[in-house]
């Protein structure tokens, strides 16, 4: 008879957040909820014990929750983080308790303890150990052991105690008084059954199967069978990291850069064929050199898109081999694709059909690995009239393409950040200056165009509610062109200081 443990973490997201915040976390008696957006609604996605005691429910609107409790702490939910962390917890349990552990999202683990409990001093001791360890790190948890996943799952979610052991063969009795919502059925099936008066699993189990199946499908029967161990349910265990990694040990330590280079290429080739088998491409490679003096040298390279082209990866890694200090020699090299993403073979376009887009990702990768990825970027036009905001830094494009200019109006090729104060004299309200002094040089204005009136983006900051800049394109006697502006509209002092600034240079 299988024995399964279900661990239920009722307030997993909030507990996790509290742990993360450490000393900054709100005290346990202060209600905490996590909210997330669903469409244009903000809903409570998780609530801690205090919040639930105060009457907040998962799924209620964030504003209503706030209105109900004055000192409520509201934070953003992190669903992906919760799921990842749950997997990590599963890995911990995998090492500690049993080879078959799976996460039971969103808020639990399932552990197959069949024939393994005695190693930990028996079932009760194992449960107590699991529960106390989890609770000691600040998670609220309920754990139950039963003959099936279904039974343990249902019991763990129904008890107030921290652990509950359902003896072998006792599932049927234990489940009978529990609500049918514990059966892992679709919400609408539960609702339909409840409408017909089925409240507990016992009532449902006592009902003839055929009429139930006719009305609600076979799922009801399946879940009941699973819970009562009539049908075996497979737990697909979580695997330790499925990283693609290759390793090479050397009989004699190697040290010469050329040798390192050669073996790097060999490792990359092996890795690429393994990646290909899994239809993956590498986004990050870690090449580790284990020296005989027990030190490890490492190279890490990244790519802007998944790659499994050996030549390219070798070049990226090769560029950095010179940074490796081999010492007395290297006896092991491992190459791991620490980040890999799916990469499907792609049809190349033929010249007949359309122009092939130049792929610049190779160049981008080389540059990024040489100078650092934060130094390689592209500029992107933003729909904003404020010059400083009209371009934004974006990650470099993978295909060569031209970016549309931000506006149809002439803009200087270079902007000064921040704009520099100049001295200028101009007639109010809207005439260009006759002359101005910038960086100590006085220039007479020969030609000018303007003003171009640009308003502050009032929705961003209070200071911009009334702010106005009047921009002029001016040309001095030497034919140099500048973009200067006056803060303010020349009439109303609310709109700016009326000082002049140099903002850009035309090429």
């Amino acid at each position, binding site marked *: 008879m299988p024995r399964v443990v279900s661990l239920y973490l009722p307030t997993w997201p909030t507990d996790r957040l509290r742990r993360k915040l450490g000393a900054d976390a709100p005290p346990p008696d202060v209600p905490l909820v996590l909210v997330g*957006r669903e*469409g*244009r*609604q*903000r809903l409570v996605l998780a*609530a801690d014990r205090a919040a*639930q005691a105060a009457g907040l*429910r*998962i799924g209620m*609107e*964030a*504003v*209503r929750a*706030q*209105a109900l409790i*004055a000192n409520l702490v509201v934070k953003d939910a992190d669903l992906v983080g919760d799921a990842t962390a749950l997997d990590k917890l599963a890995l911990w349990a995998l090492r500690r308790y049993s080879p078959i552990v799976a996460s039971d999202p969103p808020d639990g683990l399932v552990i197959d303890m069949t024939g393994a409990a005695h190693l930990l001093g028996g079932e009760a001791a194992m449960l107590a150990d699991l529960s106390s360890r989890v609770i000691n790190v600040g998670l609220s948890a309920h754990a139950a052991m039963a003959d099936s996943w279904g039974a343990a799952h249902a*019991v763990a979610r*129904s*008890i*107030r105690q921290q652990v*509950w052991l359902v*003896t072998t063969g*006792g599932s049927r009795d*234990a489940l*009978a*008084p529990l*609500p049918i*919502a514990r059966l892992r059925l679709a919400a609408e099936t539960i609702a*339909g059954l409840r*409408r*017909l*008066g089925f409240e507990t699993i*016992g*009532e449902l189990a*006592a009902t*003839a199967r*055929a*009429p139930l199946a*006719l*009305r*609600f499908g076979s799922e009801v029967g399946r879940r009941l069978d699973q819970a009562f161990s009539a049908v075996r349910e497979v737990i697909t265990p979580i695997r330790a990291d499925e990283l693609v990694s290759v390793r090479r040990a050397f009989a004699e330590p190697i040290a010469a850069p050329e040798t390192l280079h050669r073996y790097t290429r060999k490792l990359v080739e092996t890795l690429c064929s393994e990646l290909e088998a899994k239809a993956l491409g590498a986004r990050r490679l870690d090449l580790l050199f284990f020296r005989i003096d027990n030190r490890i040298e490492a190279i890490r390279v990244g790519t802007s898109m998944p790659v499994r082209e050996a030549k390219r990866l070798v070049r990226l890694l090769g560029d950095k081999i010179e940074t490796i200090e081999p010492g007395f020699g290297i006896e092991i090299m491992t190459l791991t694709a620490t980040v890999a993403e799916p990469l499907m073979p792609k049809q190349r376009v033929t010249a007949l059909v359309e122009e092939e887009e130049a792929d610049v990702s190779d160049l981008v990768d080389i540059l990024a690995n040489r100078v650092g990825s934060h130094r390689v970027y592209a500029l992107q036009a*933003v*729909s*904003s009239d404020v010059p400083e905001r009209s371009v934004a830094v974006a990650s470099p494009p993978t295909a060569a393409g031209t970016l549309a200019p931000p*506006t149809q*109006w*002439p803009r200087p090729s270079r902007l000064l950040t921040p704009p520099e104060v100049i001295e200028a004299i101009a007639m109010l309200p809207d005439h260009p200056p006759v002359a101005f002094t910038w960086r100590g040089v006085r220039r007479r204005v020969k030609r000018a*165009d*303007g*003003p*171009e*009136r640009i*308003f502050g983006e*009032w*929705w961003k*900051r*209070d200071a911009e*509610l009334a702010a106005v800049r009047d921009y002029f*394109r001016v040309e001095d006697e030497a034919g140099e062109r500048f973009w200067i502006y006056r803060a303010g509209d020349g009439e*109303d002092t609310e709109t700016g200081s009326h000082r002049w600034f140099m903002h850009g240079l035309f090429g």
Partner: protein
Amino acid sequence: MTDAYAELHCTSHFSFLRGASSCDELFAQAAALGIDALGIVDRNSLAGIVRAHIAAKETGVRLVVGCRLDLADGTALLVYPIDRFAYGRLCRLLSLGKKRAGKGKCELHWSDVAEHAEGLIGILVPNEPDDLTGLNLRRLASVFGDRAYLALTLRRRPNDHLRLHELSLLAARARVPTVVTNDVLFHAPHRRILQDVVTCIRRNCTIDDAGFRRERHADRYLKPPDEMARLFALHPEAVRRTREIAARCRFNLEELAYQYPEEATMAGLTPQAALEHLTWEGARERYPEGVPDKIVATLRHELQLIAKLRYAPYFLTVNSIVRFARSRDILCQGRGSAANSAVCFVLGITSIDPDRNDLLFERFVSEERQEPPDIDVDFEHERREIVMQWVYDTYGRDHAALCSTVTRYRSKGALRDIGKALGLPEDLIKGLSGQVWGWSEEGVQEKHAKGLNINLEDRRLRLALSLAQELIGAPRHLSQHPGGFVLTHDRLDELVPIEPAAMTDRQIIEWDKDDIDELRFMKVDVLALGMLTCMKRGFDLLKQHKDISLNLATIPAEDPRTYAMIRKADTLGVFQIESRAQMAMLPRIKPRTFYDLVIEVAIVRPGPIQGDMVHPYLRRREGKEAVEYPKPELERVLGKTLGVPLFQEQAMRVAIVCAGFSPSEADQLRRAMATFKHTGGVTKFGEKLVKGMVKRGYTEEFAVRTFSQLEGFGSYGFPESHAASFALIAYASSWLKCHHPDVFCAALLNAQPMGFYAPAQIVRDAREHGVEVRPVCVNASRWDCTLEPSGDGLAVRLGLRMVRSLSNVDGASLVAARGDRPFGSIDDLWRRAGVPAATLVHLADADAFRESLTLARREALWAIKALRDEPLPLFAAAARRAGAALPEAIEPAVELKPMKEGSEVVEDYGHVGLSLRRHPLFFIRDELTARRIVTCGRVGEVKDGTWLEAAGIVLVRQMPGSAKGVMFITIEDETGVANLVIWPDLFERQRREILGSSMMSVKGRVQREGEVVHLIASCVTDCSTLLASVGERDGIFTLPAGRGDEARHSGGGPDSRSAKVRPRDIYDPYEHIDTLKVKARAFR
């Protein structure tokens, strides 16, 4: 030189969600800046032109009527009619475009413009000085000839001056003169922010994403002529031409002469002769035993007046509409100032017998006011469409259209749209607007946010609140007026643009009711009145079941039993006098005659209440205060109402008689009070009135009081004739309720939704009056509620219409399939009626299988769940042959747990809207008693001044515009209703509980006024969660059980011998139970 500029290019907020300023603001600003002519050019629309006309009259700035045409190819043209004919062509052009494009849109092409261009001045609004502009210029020149201009507009963008220069070169080449415009979108610079936001609302994006969708050209506010001259110093001739164009456009809206449509009822007779003929004929029918002399005299007098004012065609029009309705047996009733004339009575337009009821009919049309007479006709709301289509067909779609109604932003809508544009989360907006009373215009304020524990430091939120405040009152779009028809003799589309309405086969004009009033067009209101539908159904049922034939005019008059019922305020469901405020007034007015009812209807209106006329009237009526008139002239005006002005026309009369106003001034006073409440026009009249009265020998104190009384009127006062018409329907419905409560109940249920009360209260009230009400039943109910014989009386059988989500089509096919052979089983019903299984679920939810098939909700649902999409063909064939339903499978019987009684009630409420079982509060009474909460019935028994706490389901929340922020709430429990009064300070303190609870408990002090008892609330508690728990309750378990009766205590769970998890250990944060939701009705 300074006045050499007229602004021709102003967009008002009638270019919906584009312009950000009202015409009033634009004209006031223009006047302040010294601009003496303003051209209003809204996008493909003349909707704001009447408002602009009024603003122009008030400020003295001339209005140049115009319109901006956005052609389908993207060209923008400004056009201005120079005379009446050109204006007519412009209207036709716009009507054409609107008809082509459908509601709210307009599609026009150059060719359309060319056809209608005669007499229009055209200004091209160019973009860049490129080939396209050159092409358009040549088109412009060929279409408009010497009336073509090119607009020069400063954009405050690079190369502005170069652009203007090149544009003027292009124009010169095409021989088109240039003219300066400023493309104004708002009156003053600070409106820019609001303009950005409305753009976002229009483009349905948030301000952060708006990017270049915002208006990109700067400085779109009105600038003084000096400044314009300075800005366009290089184009002085183009600046001067603005004046030239303004001078060329001589058209003024006052020129829109209006003619009544001709009635072709009687060949060879003038309208007057035809009317007289019909009148005397009608009089003979009304008075078969001979027309009384008094009536003859009255009729003569009225006909004379009609002849003098040439109103005969109008009366004939109303008469033919009413005749048509009569011919289709559609119940109708006229009201309005002219409706209570003897002529209207004998023509059958109204049912108020002028002989029986002493109405001041000699003023039914005001000779002085020079205003078209006013008759509104109410029809049964379900069949009004027939009448409307007849009007369109008879008068022609070129001559008849509905007025539009300008939908304006109120607090909630403004916050919703602004919040969306500023990217506030939806739940926040919803939470905030839930704190605001629906009709208020106070705006959402910081105090509301505080009530929700919302952080007001948030900049966006504060911005949203203040912008929403600014947006309140701005028009959002045009929708159709409920029934105001404009009928003309000439083509209507030469008077005003017509557009198709959202409803098929309807068309509306661009102007609303006030605009029509301003221009003195004739309007016939064809309104829908739910109570008429109810009365019609009531009369039909009376005829069918009791063989009593009645109509509005023949209902026994002055019936003492009916008045006795009304005096007890036992008026739930009857017309008008069913509202809380009315019910509270009834025992004080103590109506004994029809005229008392007229006063009752008129007195509980915002006008009299705000003017503080109610208490003086009541005191005088009860003899506590002497009725005195400072001067005998006042007695003539106010004699009938004991010296207190209660009706609108009395207010005007007072101004005329006591303050020496001319009739037209009195009329202006009325309008000032109604329409321009916010512009301060009233104060001007106030001074004049007080001065006039003092001069005529009244004391200043009396004069000031009179003025404050009059101030309450305006649109909120009833004219006496309206009150009389409403009183008649109120009386008729009361009579029906009094003498035939069964018929009244069925008719009222069938006319839902209408009135203040939900079906639950109507049914409860009927049962309290001894009417038997039977539940919905698949084998007995028809679509409508019906009457069934029961003992020696009649019982009301709820109809299938009461079943939530059941479609009329399915309901009808069920009844048709049933015929006279009742359904034997669910299977039988499903096969014979051919309705989808989902429909059966609705019926099962409504418990419609219990009575005849003895299937409870769950059993029925269980059976329905087993049905497939289609019957199996072989079984179907066998069933046909056998003539009975054959089960497709034999399955083991399943015993379902019966529903708890509380759940049954919850389900009843959820799916039928009422329960014939127990009241929900019955199930939680023990808890309430434990909390020392008394029943609502108790509230009515204790003595005045007692403090107590009562609880109940919230039925009605009402905050009459009159009551200075006082809110009335009606709560109900199993013993009856209690009426709460919430004072404004409590409302502010407990806004969330008061507006948000579906059940509340209230601590307060009992106040008795005769038979009417109020609970003056001092503290409100939200009990909604307690109410929601009713579904878990069982009636049986709340009853005290004997000690030995263990079965009752342990319940029938599974055997509990083995080690098992006890239910009390169950901890379930996710559980959602079916909860009882009762939605209260809210009223202004």
